[in-house]
């Protein structure tokens, strides 16, 4: 009794074999639950700068969808006020023109979205409007790819995407802002 032999000591040890399993379990739990801060945003390609004034292109007004945002963050679409929530559907209708109306785009390839804002417009409003316009195109492209290839646009191959891009090019032109409102 007085002397402890090795066998006794062995029996007293806590089994640490499962510790690794617990650690892995925790690790996996954190991996699943945490969202890694990612850098995301709305990707835009700016037009190249040129010092010459742009050519005065004769464009059929029916193909131009003008969206104006004023310094009070109000929306004027083709001379009529509109809510941001309705912008996406209205834009889709304009580009697609399913009923071949005379005041909407002749063809999606000819449609031009013209976005103009004021220097006093809030950036948040600008981005929301831009996002809605882009969303309209995304929706249309998804519809088109569903129809042609039976899958969403983002899952299409490069060749398939190019095909859709040809039919539905994204043309959102940003005009120089007006400066009526107050900047802050």
């Amino acid at each position: 009794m007085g002397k402890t032999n090795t066998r006794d000591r062995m029996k007293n040890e806590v089994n640490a074999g499962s510790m690794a399993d617990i650690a892995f379990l925790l690790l996996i739990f954190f991996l699943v639950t945490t969202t890694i801060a990612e850098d995301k945003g709305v990707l835009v390609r700016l037009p190249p700068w040129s010092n010459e004034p742009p050519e005065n292109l004769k464009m059929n007004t029916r193909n131009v969808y003008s969206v104006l945002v004023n310094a009070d963050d109000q929306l004027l679409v083709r001379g009529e006020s509109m809510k941001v929530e309705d912008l996406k559907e209205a834009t889709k209708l304009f580009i697609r023109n399913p009923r071949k109306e005379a005041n909407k785009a002749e063809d999606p390839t000819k449609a031009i979205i013209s976005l103009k804002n004021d220097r006093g417009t809030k950036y948040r409003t600008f981005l929301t409007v831009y996002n809605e316009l882009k969303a309209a195109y995304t929706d249309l492209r998804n519809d088109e790819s569903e129809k042609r290839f039976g899958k969403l646009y983002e899952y299409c191959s490069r060749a398939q995407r190019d095909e859709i891009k040809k039919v539905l090019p994204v043309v959102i032109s940003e005009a120089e802002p007006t400066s009526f409102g107050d900047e802050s």
Partner: protein
Amino acid sequence: MATFEKKRGKASPEVSTASLPDIIFMLLFFFMMVTVMRDSELKVDVNTPEATELTKLEKKSLVNYIFVGRPKVAYRDTYGTKPRMQLGDKFSTVADIPLFLEKHKAKLPENQRQGITSSLKIDGTVTMGIVADIKTALRKANQLKVNYSAGKRVD
């Protein structure tokens, strides 16, 4: 009873520390995943708007950041409360953009340069005036790939 006493010898039970490294590694990995490296301290308040049409920025080395927002409280005495632009880690003006872009470009090999994206981290309450000026400066510097940084909107 006798057997009971036998089991509890004088030996002090020791907890194995063999798995301690595992735990430490786990913590390390966890923090590695969660922390975002930021090479410049933010001097302006940036609360980006939310959007749905988001694109992920893939290669971090090809991205340069332009922050716009109101100066943080600590800098208000010096810089006021009007929206300011921050390039790298200092307050700047639109005139500093070409040099900033050029410095970033110089660090990259030539074949990667057309992939450079400018990430505009702009506070939602800022007005478009300063944004328009930045856009013009970027266009003049031929930096046309722009990403308006935004959070994911959940409807």
